[in-house]
């Protein structure tokens, strides 16, 4: 125990296979949540994340450095003269050795400057400010969809286990998990937009509509704030298909985890105790059964969120969603070094924060984690 505590303790290792999905629930954390006060714990985790992000930036920088290729030439295009290219190379320190480049980058990062994108020719911070909300809107939306639908189907399938509904949800889950989100996107696009013509296929709102004044960057919210309900509804319709194609796999996944957790818990004595003591069925299912059953679902949510973001990289391409993920793919394809580092770090930071939130939420849901005495 003492030997390990310096290194971090593996809190829980679980490789669960359910409905064709493997959950890498390797919740490994350097710090035991029960060893510290909440504030201190958050602080330590953030410091750890900073360290990881630092390593990540070093890794990307290193890879970019050893790769062949000339970002400056790519950025300026075929018509640029050699002097123009050379000038740009100096401007972005491409002519300097690796440590010096990294030093310059780190120095400007501390000033809150991520450098300029060679592709959009704008400060990257500005690009992120522009594109990130669109992706967050999409990801949150699909996160909510997968949460709600996953929970409901999971609870139903667990409670009515071995019924037709359970069978159906199992079938859907197999297919949902085996279908990559970009394939799902194309199928949904084909069916709902091309064949049925129900739903608009591209962008955040219809082309001729003017986006509402930006407040949050979330078009649906912004148009509600501006009182443009038509635009909000239009935005909602546009977000359905991409959000759904991101969500399907996770609906399937969360549904299966919730189901197995419900099935686990429903056989526990305490459920019988509640029933025997006359607690109404509704309370038993939606309170006493759901809360403990939620714990495994919530603890895979951080990973879920990360996968939704990653899948958004492709889904945004299919739906021409003008978001961060499409921007990320474009800068990657264009070898826009600064922007690549920035987008990878943003994804890493988001992931770290979401994971931290998830861990805290789980510890609140599960007093066993929060209150367990050390060494138990």
């Amino acid at each position, binding site marked *: 125990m003492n030997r390990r505590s310096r290194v971090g303790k593996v809190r829980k290792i679980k490789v669960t296979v359910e409905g064709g999905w493997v959950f890498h629930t390797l919740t490994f954390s350097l710090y035991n949540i029960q060893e510290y006060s909440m504030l201190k714990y958050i602080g330590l985790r953030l410091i750890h994340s900073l360290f990881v992000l630092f390593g990540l930036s070093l890794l990307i920088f290193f890879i970019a450095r050893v790769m062949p290729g000339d970002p400056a030439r*790519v950025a300026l295009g075929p018509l*640029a003269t050699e002097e123009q290219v050379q000038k740009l190379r100096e401007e972005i320190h491409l002519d300097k050795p690796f440590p010096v480049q990294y030093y310059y980058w780190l120095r400007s990062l501390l000033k809150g400057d991520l450098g300029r994108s060679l*592709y959009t020719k704008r400060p990257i911070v500005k690009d992120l400010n522009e594109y990130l909300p669109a992706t967050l809107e999409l990801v949150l939306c699909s996160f909510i969809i997968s949460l709600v639908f996953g929970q409901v189907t999971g609870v139903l399938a667990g409670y009515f286990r071995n019924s037709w509904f359970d069978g159906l949800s199992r079938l859907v889950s197999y297919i949902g998990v085996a279908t990559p989100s970009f394939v799902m996107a194309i199928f949904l696009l084909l069916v709902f937009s091309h064949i049925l013509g129900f739903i608009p296929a591209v962008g955040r709102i219809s082309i001729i509509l003017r986006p509402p004044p930006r407040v949050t960057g979330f078009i649906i919210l912004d148009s509600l704030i501006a009182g443009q309900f038509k635009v909000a509804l239009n935005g909602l319709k546009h977000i359905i298909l991409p959000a759904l194609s991101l969500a399907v796999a996770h609906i399937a996944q969360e549904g299966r985890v919730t189901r197995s957790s419900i099935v686990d818990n429903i056989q526990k004595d305490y459920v019988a105790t509640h029933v025997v003591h006359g607690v109404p069925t509704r309370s038993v299912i939606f309170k006493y059964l759901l809360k403990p059953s939620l714990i495994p679902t919530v603890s895979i949510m951080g990973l879920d969120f990360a996968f939704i973001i990653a899948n958004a990289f492709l889904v945004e391409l299919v739906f021409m969603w003008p978001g961060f993920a499409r921007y990320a793919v474009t800068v990657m394809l264009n070898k826009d070094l600064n922007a690549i580092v920035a987008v990878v770090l943003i994804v890493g930071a988001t992931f770290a924060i979401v994971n931290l939130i998830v861990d805290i939420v789980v510890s609140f849901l599960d007093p066993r984690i929060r209150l367990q005495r050390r060494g138990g």
Partner: protein
Amino acid sequence: MKKQLLYFLVALLLIPSAFLTASEREEVMPEAENVVVINGMPVIIPDPGQAMDWYDTQVVYNLYSPLLYPTPDGKLRPHLAESWEAVGGMLDHWRFKLRRGVKFHDGSELTAEDVAFSMERLMSLGKGYSGIMGKVTARVIDNYTVDFVLAKPNAVFPATLTLFWPLNKDLVLENKKPGEYGQFGDYAQEWLNEHDAGSGPYMMVSHSPGERMEATRFKDYFLGWEEPKPTEAPIERLIFIMNWETATLMMLLKSQQLDVEMNGAFSRKTLKEIVDTPGIGLKRIWPEVWTVWINTTVPPTDDVHFRRALLYAYDYDAIMEQYSPYGAKEANIIASGLPGLVKVPPQPRRQNLAKAREELAKSKYDPDEVKVVFHYCAGLEAEEEVGLQLQADLAKLGIELEIAGPPWPQYSEECAKPETTPNLTMFMFPIVYPSPDSFMNFMYHPSNIGGIYSAHWYVNREYGMLIDKARETLDSDDRLGIYEQLQEKIASDALALYPYEIPMLFTTQDYMIGPKEVFPIVGPTESMYNWRIDLTKKP
């Protein structure tokens, strides 16, 4: 109880699907009449000092006015400048008299001050089309006269000014941010990404890069808006969108959500579908020369006989026939639509396997022992087709052709060095400014060799001398003579295979009238001043 609960919850799951059934159509009804939606490319840089890609140029032609304008037959006509001359016959000193009463979008008048400032800005930034013009110093002579002094004599200089769009000096300086250009700050580069400072037929309303740009009609445009016929209307509002998914674009076109598509990278199948779809059609715009560069520095294509053998082996008609309904025709070293084109005899234009074998026999390579590599830009099916056709043809000579289609950034980067450039690389070249120099200087001048514009890597001092000589020749007929001489030489060196030339194809709704004039260079045709809407056909 259990069952009821189940049914209730299943119904709950189904509620969102009610959304799916609501119709899209009624919501898309335009707010204002005459909205035209145009498709462009991902990020547009609508700043004349930085614009470089043809997508930028298309947009800039709508927001700004160039100093000189091309004519549909590839010559020059006055625009912001009323007249121009080489001062004292010296080709390195040009004087331009400006048109009076030209208004910028903020109502202020365009003066020599603005023009000179814009040229200085272009030169200091060193971006965009500045490379094409060379080193230029601007001098204000009076309010409406400006002199440009060049580092090297250049008879073609006026033609390059179709790519020079003066900006509103006061507005630019008002909106500069601190930057590396001293008192000029950043030359308002950032501001100009999302605003305009021009005098063109349209004014920018909003721009979110990579997503959408909107512009409205500038009523005080100096060329004036002719009284429209009762059945026609000028276009009031432009919306540029950035989308390149073929299936999506087709859907937008068919549902009339997209009026003009000028990205133009559709495959043959899609083109056919467009022609067959009622309500939309194709418009032929500027010509593009489809070019397969042959790298002359790597084996086996460093042997001129081997190169010639390739040119004779290719079956030109096979693919051209497929595209002839869309205007494909034989290609030449420079694009048709330019004065000075010669149909050069040494350039093969028919498959001739006997001759190919003959040339192959003269070459130092044994066809069985060599491999030829062909690269094209990923996603461009029409380019892949050429490669596949060539592969089949070369197989008849026993030559193996390897085909690959790397994505654009990798592709253009490969072509930055002779040793990484594949044997064959395929591109489409439009005319950038109305002169054969637009093809010659960047493709064959020894000082410009390298990159996609000259992935043949053939350095020939004589070419350079001839190009420079043409630039020093004032008389245009003499100049064209030099270009003709040059083309013959180039053809005999077998630097490129030309599958065909085809006009850029825009897909438009049938209710779009236009373009009134078709220009051979990129940009002016796409100025929406050139287009109208037929109110009788628009639903």
